[in-house]
């Protein structure tokens, strides 16, 4: 029993205070306004306050804290990407993740489980080798492993996948981890709040005022704010915010669904991903299997669930793990993913002065939470993109400078 839990048994009063205040009204102006109280927005607020002393900042969240994709993803954290830009960026994120629980004094259950991306075709083996080689070049633990190694780490897997798609190998990424997603938002939220940042939930942005190409303010359902700096960190809602300032992006929005099983005694240590079967799965500390698959095949700005998704994912889960026949699915849910053509994010400055963008997080946003917050805070504070995100600028699409991460997407989307 950790000593720090003693106070709960021996205090007369419950010894905890609010993690985040609930300001009853908006101020008339802020040094910066962050739209979106998810992991990314809160992380940016946290680092702005902590690293740059910018505390007169409001985070506006139209729903509740961490209620978007931060609370809907399957919590996989990895850095085994394909492009040098991606690898460096996500590797910095992994570095930040390591210390986050202690920085926050909040246990994020950052759990290092190891991550296998299964290859079922020789083309997939080639891509895995490519990723492994690029990863190793940048000092990231990543290697192509043979079926025997996979079987050893995961004895209950049927490597023939019911004969449909035999596993030929895998990319093994030892640092691959999972974390308690909601707590990430709370940790950043509390850290930002304690440094003076105001978090306004149930506050919807209705307009953004731009004069002479510069941001001057934000209109909300709770009143107007004047500010010269606005960060848009709203994932699937990005096109709606961009419309308010007249910017276009190549984002396309697809639902991404997931589901979770009843708890069972832990048996699955690593995170398993199969591109061919469109499956990713890990087992939480509660014993549930958290399972995801590829994007819904059509554009849609909604978070409805579909039966087809559950059926398809279940079939592929049984292909991989026959022994799950009697396991039950408790719940399915969905988020909306803002996909980019090259599967890399859109970060940094925009043609509108003072309007910063943190978007294009598609299916890979959660793992980038710390580094996106850190680099966006830098970008806002200096009005200059952080070196790690220079190649992720919105302008890359017009300039044909794409960052081809499609090959590193966890499953074929």
């Amino acid at each position, binding site marked *: 029993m950790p000593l720090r839990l003693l106070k709960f048994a021996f205090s007369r009063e419950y010894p905890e205070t609010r993690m985040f205040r609930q300001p009853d009204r908006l101020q008339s102006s802020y040094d910066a306004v962050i739209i979106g109280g998810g992991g990314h927005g809160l992380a940016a607020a946290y680092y702005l306050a902590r690293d740059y002393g910018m505390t007169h900042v409001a985070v506006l969240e139209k729903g509740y804290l961490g209620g978007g994709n931060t609370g809907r993803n399957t919590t996989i954290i990895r850095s085994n990407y394909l492009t040098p830009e991606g690898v460096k960026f996500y590797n910095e994120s992994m570095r930040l993740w390591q210390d986050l629980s*202690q920085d926050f004094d909040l246990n994020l259950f950052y759990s290092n489980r190891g991550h296998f991306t299964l290859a079922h075709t020789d083309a997939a083996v080639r891509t895995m080798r490519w990723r492994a080689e690029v990863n190793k070049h940048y000092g990231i633990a990543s290697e192509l492993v043979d079926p025997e190694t996979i079987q050893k780490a995961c004895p209950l897997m049927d490597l023939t996948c019911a004969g449909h798609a035999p596993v030929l190998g895998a990319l093994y990424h030892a640092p691959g981890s999972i974390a308690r997603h909601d707590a990430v938002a709370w940790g950043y939220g509390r850290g930002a709040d304690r440094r003076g940042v105001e978090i306004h939930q149930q506050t919807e942005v209705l307009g953004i005022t731009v004069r002479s190409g510069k941001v001057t303010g934000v209109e909300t359902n709770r009143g107007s704010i004047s500010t010269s700096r606005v960060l848009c960190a709203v994932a699937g809602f990005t096109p709606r915010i961009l419309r308010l300032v007249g910017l276009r992006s190549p984002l396309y929005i697809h639902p991404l669904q997931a589901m979770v099983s009843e708890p069972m005694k832990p048996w699955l240590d690593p995170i398993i991903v199969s591109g061919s079967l469109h499956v990713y799965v890990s087992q939480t500390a509660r014993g549930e299997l958290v399972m995801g698959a590829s994007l819904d095949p059509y554009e849609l700005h909604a978070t409805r669930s579909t039966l087809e998704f559950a*059926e398809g994912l279940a079939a592929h889960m049984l292909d991989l793990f026959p022994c799950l026949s009697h396991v039950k699915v408790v719940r399915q849910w969905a988020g909306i993913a803002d996909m980019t053509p090259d599967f890399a994010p859109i970060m940094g400055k925009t043609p509108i002065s003072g309007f910063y963008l943190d978007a294009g997080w598609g299916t890979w946003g959660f793992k980038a939470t710390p580094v996106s917050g850190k680099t966006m805070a830098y970008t806002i504070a200096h009005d200059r993109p952080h070196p790690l995100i220079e190649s992720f600028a919105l302008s890359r699409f017009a300039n044909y400078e794409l960052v081809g991460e499609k090959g590193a997407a966890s499953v074929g989307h």
Partner: protein
Amino acid sequence: MSEAGLHQPFAKSTLPQEPLTDRPSRRGDRLPPMPHEWIDRDRIIDFTFEGTHFWGYAGDTISSALWASGQRILGRSFKYHRPRGILSFANHDINALMQAGEKLNLRADTTPLEPGMTLAAVNTIEGVHNDRASLLNAFSPFLPVGFYYKAFHHKRLFPFWERLIRRISGLGQLVPTTPRIRTAKRYDFCDVLVIGAGVSGLSAALAAAAAGADVALVDENAQAGGSGSYQLGGELALAETTHQLVQQVMHHPRIRLFTQTVAAGYYTDHWVPLVDRDHLTKMRAKAVIIASGAYEQPAVFRNNDLPGVLLASAAQRLIYRYAVKPMHRAVVLVANTDGYRAAMDLLTQGISIQAVVELRSDPIANPWIAQLRSHHVPIYSGYCIYEAKTNPAKDGVCSAVICPIDARGIPQTGFSQAIACDGILMSVGWAPTANLLYQAGAKLRFEPSLQQFVPDTLPPGIFACGRVNGVYEFAEKIHDGQNVGVTAFEYLNNPLPSNSCPLSRLPSFTPPPLHPAPFIPHPKGKNFVDFDEDLQYKDFIHAAQEGFDNIELLKRYTTVGMGPSQGKHSNMNALQILAQITGKSPGEVGTTTARPFFHPVLLSHLAGRSFTPKRQTPLHSRHGALGAKFMLAGQWQRPEYYARSHSSRIDCIQREAIAVRQRVGMIDVGTLGKLEIRGPQAAEFLERVYTGRYANLKGGMSRYALMLDETGVVIDDGVIARLGLDHFYFTTTTSGAAQIHRELTRWNTIWQLDCGIVNLTGARSAINLAGPHARHVLAQLTDCDLSSAAFPYLAVREAIVAQIPVLLLRVGFVGEWGYEIHVAAESTPALWDALMVAGAAHDITPFGVEAQRLLRLEKGHLIVGQDTDGLTTPREAGLAWAVKSDKPFFIGQRSLEILAKQPIQQKLVGFRLDPAFQATPPQECHLVIEQDEIVGRVTSVAYSPTLKQFIGLAYVAPEMATPNHRFNIRLSNGEIVTAIVTSTPFYDPDNQRQKETIAHPSQVAA
């Protein structure tokens, strides 16, 4: 109200006192036969639970059989490992989950008893009676809400704590040897789907069917009837009325009744998965009536989780369905009319009621109060149960400590008294079973007079009746069901855009069925709100204190409703507690999102038989007979190579390749995408989607075709043959076939050109005959003039080969004289056989994908997808020659124009290793390293038996792309291999062998 006036304390002494230690005999807990009971007393079922032998009747559930046998501890709770018994007896007793062999997390409250079952409670250490993990209960003061966020995160120690936590977490045990189970799925259709076969659902089904609708009625219980069969207040006549409704339904020709079937979710367009024990049926309805009733909600007081503390409806179900005595001496906690009914149901069955504890200080008059009083049942109004006490055996409740409660809900503990009992009933409120309504997009509003969320607006074709619609009384439920049944039928013929008249009038009674605050604080806690997750009342107060005072945040922080029951007995109380804390109305607090599934669904049911398409070419059996080793190419199975005894894989591949170079070989290329386009604007269409020029392609000729996406990236290639002015036949890559066809169809939907595209990939097949003897082999089978003059390179001819109509394309992917012979799929085996016979004298050799890859590599031909990636442009891949930039338009053209102004990042080049190279060769995707930076990668590499050296293709920095430049390839083990840039083709650089300049086969030395 005077009738229910405060109980006089001396009344207690008049009650018969029985010693609390005597256990009821095992058979003694079965009541005399009930009318329409669900058990078959003629069939005894033996089973074991936790190593002890038990018996029950056919029709029993695990819980009813154990309870009837006096077994009170059915399981242990998730967090504190507290003993738990029956709570809901309605498919959300998450603390009574069983392991039965390889079946895990079986719900004892609803799982039918089967002969020979060997059961154990899940998640215990050394059994349910002496669970060593119950030590955690003693530590509970140290484990506040969200305790796992507050500790264990010291970086060095976390792995230790995590291992410990993972050891004790989870419920059932996965059995590794469990086989993969594939169940068939069914599809079904109906006019009106009625979900819930209680009184209102039965009435709705009958009314809709009477009007003429084809009705499907589903209920998760073993038999229809719902609460109409057990919530009787002692009036068996009600059960009889219900029984008659059920009989009518069962004999109605237009109603199909599905019992033990869960409507597991609602999906767009009235698509409802119905899950029974063996199958998932996908039901498509034209209208859906949701008559799913309500969940009874627990009162929250200390030790409300002790075995023997039950929801009133659980006790009623035990009595009327299974003839099981829930207890012998009961205390009944009530806050609504239903509680008095439940008390009467006990009393009628001879169960003594020690006290009725009425939470409200002035309950509304009801007929049962007088009846109870006439049986000398003391009624304590304005009282609460402050806590339940455990018996010495620690397997159940032995008394209820009650005390007055003031108007603010504060228990007046100074006036407390203990009432001996062996069971407590809780009847304080209901929450609507609105899950499917929410999933269907219904909007609900909070109705204060009912203290319930009721439908406000319903989407088209969705209807609600009965308790979920706020209608509680028996007669009114029948009426409501009938109304809705008729309305649903009318909707079938006149589907209105919206129907928003869910609750036409409020029910006639005024006391709300839900007490807004049945929460009794206790300094020592253990007053549980969520039994799945062991969440106590104070956990909610503390979570709110920590800032989680919004329903969604509260859920996520406390995990309320996140257990397997998904909050069926906890969400409403959590919401009411939060409303209390924040001073908001429940309507303002709102609910969390209801998502599928209503009850958990087996992966095997969801998976069904699993449809994994596999494609075989018409020649599959021929390949098999020749010893082919198959590989997957997309969905296709293709011969990787043909195995020969005493030959290694690589020897087989090289032998096949050499045969093609020296004599003749043939390969099944039936997997290529094969498309046909016809129409006046067919040429125009091809000009737009491919980079080359096709308007000027002569009839009877073919040309290479390269396709880009809008960003100028190479996505596919193939060959286009012109068969007539308005008629083209063309191929795509094997893996791209379906996608390219879809993409072309999409484009023409946008462009609306006058042409039609047909995908012939499955209808036609193809064989590539290649090698210096190819013409000689083919000439034996056809009258077609194969001379160079009549049939030049890249020409296309319709011909008869071995009496089979074919299309001959003189193309040469492998770099030899060759013919791609396209033929109707069904004629392919005959053609193959004829070629084998005709080629026998030339030792014709079938070759597989690997030999083809080697042969094309010798020619420097790239494979899209292997030698290109998601960002490769034609210029980088050395395909600029195939791009006719001066065309008015093609997909990707604008991007190429922009890219043309930029320097390229890399270039695909041929390379070779030193002929003397003996060490480990590089593999595909090994990196090209220059000054410790990544400058490219190998995309193809192989040993060429013809050239007697390793050759390959690689991307390198543009400045390195000059012949004889030496560059470094780094292997996986870090070793560096030097490669030499070499112009391609490596083999036959002038392409003489596939063209006219080659001598006739008879003049070639074999």
